[in-house]
């Protein structure tokens, strides 16, 4: 587990695109949404609604990328076979990268929280440490699910599926109510939104800013669904590893 964590840290420290992931895009995201709330003359509640969504999306994006990098670094460097030759399990790979993802996610969150407080008078710490901790944990659990699924897709479809590392999180944006309440979604999309754990986590956190919860026990539901999906995603990834050992894709990804 430590091997993967250390490797992700080294890569983050050496490659310029990590600066963009960690600072540039989150800054652009929070500033553009914040300025939009000013332009539309939205009140503090609506500003909070949108900024909470923006920060959740950035945090999930950055953290899930780290989980995906556990495999993508090897795919890009054509060294996948060495990793799977070693006596490591998927949980080591995923957990080590996820821990680094949490670190990077917290950095992004901290940066965005600071920017929204400075530029838009938005206090992210208002709901209290516990609520904030639960919100961030919910984001990080969703990231683990997305990252594991991206790894499974890459092992099923090869390098063609790399794009899913950046595209999958957009599903979160559509279904989880990042910029709107899921109740405005048409059926059956609205019901489908209820299958995403982040929907509940956002619902719970926004309730601290004066929005009535759309679901009962949203945090509990969010965590139960996250646990269930992490189990399923782990199983899917294990199945994908077995399949690519059978098809030879594991070797092709190393050529």
């Amino acid at each position: 587990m430590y091997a993967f964590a250390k490797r992700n840290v080294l890569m983050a420290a050496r490659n310029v695109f990590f600066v963009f992931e960690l600072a540039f895009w989150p800054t652009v995201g929070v500033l553009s949404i914040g300025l939009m709330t000013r332009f539309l003359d939205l009140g503090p509640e609506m500003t909070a609604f949108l900024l909470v969504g923006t920060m959740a999306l950035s945090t999930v994006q950055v953290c899930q990328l780290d989980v995906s990098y556990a495999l993508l670094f090897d795919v890009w460097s054509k060294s996948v076979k060495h990793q799977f030759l070693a006596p490591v399990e998927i949980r080591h790979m995923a957990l080590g990268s996820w821990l680094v993802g949490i670190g990077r996610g917290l950095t992004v969150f901290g940066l965005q929280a600071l920017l929204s407080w400075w530029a838009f008078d938005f206090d992210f710490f208002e709901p209290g440490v516990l609520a904030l901790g639960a919100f961030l944990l919910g984001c990080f659990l969703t990231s683990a699910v997305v990252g594991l699924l991206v790894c499974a897709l890459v092992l099923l479809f090869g390098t063609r599926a790399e794009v899913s590392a950046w595209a999958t999180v957009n599903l979160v944006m559509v279904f989880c109510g990042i910029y709107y309440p899921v109740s405005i979604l048409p059926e059956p999309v609205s019901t489908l939104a209820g299958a995403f754990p982040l929907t509940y986590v956002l619902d719970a956190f926004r309730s601290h800013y004066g929005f009535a919860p759309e679901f009962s026990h949203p945090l509990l539901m969010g965590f139960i669904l996250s646990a269930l999906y992490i189990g399923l995603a782990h199983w899917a990834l294990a199945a994908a590893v077995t399949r690519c050992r059978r098809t030879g894709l594991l070797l092709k990804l190393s050529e």
Partner: protein
Amino acid sequence: MLAVEVRDLAKTFRSGWFPRRLTRALRGGNLSIPRGVIFGLLGPNGAGKTTLLSILATLLLPDAGEAKVLGHDVVREARAIRPRLNMASGNSSFIWSLRAPEILAFYGRLYGLHGKALARKVDELVALCELEEHRKVPYQELSTGLKQRLALAKSLVNDPELLFLDEPTLGLDPDISVRMRAQIAGLRRERGTTILLTTHYMREAEELCDEIAFIKNGEIPARGTADALKRQIRIGDVIALRLDPASGDGLAELPGVLRCVFQDGRVECTVDSAEKRLAQILSWLHEQGVVVRDVDVHEPDLEEVFVELAK
């Protein structure tokens, strides 16, 4: 005890949807390799060498048959095997921006090393593979030879009992190849590592391997020592002649002469037995008024055996 035992191993790759293409990479090959030897696997491109190696290394699942590595089944007991083997190939690649010690440390950790033991192992391998001067160079900036030395170093990170080397000297300069071969021979001599090696360089196989198996179309038609293979294939002896005038028309028609090749003013005749045919050839040339300036008789080398088997 055997290091590798393979029975009726078969593997077919499927590609495309319509039409579905099938490539039979292994067709029920059998092989046993004792411990402590360097075993060579030779064969033309696409013969199934890398497929066999990958199955034995637990990177690929076979369709049929059985393969045991260090006494364990490669499918059912892969977890028990992985800590005890490792692999390096001529086209190995690692993460571009990491440095040699970081790459070795990463894989060392995957094999359970940590702390001082890991640092010692990294230093030992860096020294063994002569990478000291390149400790701070990112992988992408290393030369091909250094990359391959690093691949070899990585494959030793867990002190494997069984080491798979897939064309370890591919694309290397001759002087670096010689050093690499010396390192490989040293591994068996000093550590007792069993090595299964694939190569396209016959000289390498002849120099390093205790035994060789020839693989063709997913089958293993011949195996043995290099000398035994030469005898087994019975491709005859070679009589090389320098003639004046440089013409040997009619030589190929003589009894016992299998073929003649003219090159650079010399003629190389492959005969069923040099002992039987040399006098007969010299006598015939004398009758033709041809002066023999030089004669050399030798057994076919492994390359000729390879060419014969690959036909």
